[in-house]
């Protein structure tokens, strides 16, 4: 399991962790019912506060991605397709936002961007 954090991102660290784990779960790199590292081990390895890793796990649990069992640890939950799709759509939207910000920063118009999208869509 790989988690890479950025200190300079606008996103709080707990969000970065939560999102990366969500992504791993959706991409099935983390399998159903797999045991996740404890919040303390994660905190030590990433050199961050355990409060933050706990917050990330709490968020993951709230959104239904993982299940925490006191005394045993946190496990990847069982997924249904709708959740998966919704999550993937969110990821796509995020990436589109990134592309749009990048385009705007060098003054590329919507039309030009759309053209680029169409071209690449056909290529991939």
């Amino acid at each position, binding site marked *: 399991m790989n988690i890479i954090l950025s*200190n300079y991102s606008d996103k*709080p660290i707990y969000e970065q962790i939560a999102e990366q784990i969500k992504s791993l779960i959706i991409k099935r790199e983390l399998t159903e019912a797999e045991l996740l590292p404890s919040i303390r081990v994660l905190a*030590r390895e990433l050199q961050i*506060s*355990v*409060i933050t890793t706990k917050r990330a796990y709490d968020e993951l649990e709230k959104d239904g991605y993982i299940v925490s069992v006191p005394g045993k640890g946190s496990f990847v939950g069982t997924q249904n397709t709708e959740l998966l799709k919704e999550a993937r759509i969110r990821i796509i939207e995020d990436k589109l936002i990134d592309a749009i910000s990048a385009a705007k920063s060098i003054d590329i118009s919507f039309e030009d961007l759309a053209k680029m999208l169409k071209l690449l869509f056909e290529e991939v």
Partner: protein
Amino acid sequence: MEPIFEIKGLKKSFKDFSLKGIDISLNRGYIMGFIGPNGAGKTTTIKLMMNLLRKDDGEIKIFGKDYIQFEKEIKNKLGFVYDENHFYEELTIEEMKWVIAPFYEKWNESLYKSYMKDFNLPLKKKIKDLSRGMKMKFSLAIALSHDAELLVMDEPTSGLDPVIRSELLEILSQTIQDENKAVFFSTHITSDLDKIADYITLIDDGKILLDGEKDELLDSYGLVRGNKEILNADINKDFINVRENQFGFEALVKDKNHIKKIYGDKIIIEKPNIEDIMLYYTGRWQNAKSNN
């Protein structure tokens, strides 16, 4: 769950400094960084906790018990590391340990030996011949070898190079894997805390200016930069403190999202680090004379 230690309304007066009634508490399983400029009251607070100084007023409870009534019992479970060396210079490491270890009920000799090995400390060397870093590591080894639940450290990394500081932080990280333990750690080298602290308490001039979860603070506070033209009474209200230079200003805000919404494009907002928070809260540079 009861805090591992709790300080309430602690007061202490000296001729030219006083602790003006401070509250601090820490739960088990966490690391708290106790920060502040030199002379802010960090060492005084720690000495009061260790009963090296007598309080004028207030309450101190450690492990849920009064810190004087149960002093010996508490100190058995408390590990300490100070910035200055108070071990006898003429003794060797082994001799010094021999003096100290019997006082602790739960001294763990094999654990101590493993720390000595990990830290690469020469047992037969005299304390006065040890480098500063080695002295600190020795202190730490002793502090960790008697099943202490609370580790109290007063500027343990001052005067040490970044490599040793990083080693110390790793050891503390490892210690805190045991959720029953806690670390209380004063420093003015705030970069040490940017990573591993769970909580931050900022003290200045004997008063607590700020305390909270470190990551929450770093996430919600913002370092704002912009043109001086946009400064006015209104915007100043939102700033903890402002620092102007010839070409613009820099300020610390508590709620960066709020500021972003209002001033959006006119400013740049970045994530602060703990040092920024400390500098802006204490506003010390205002006393410094400008060089141009």
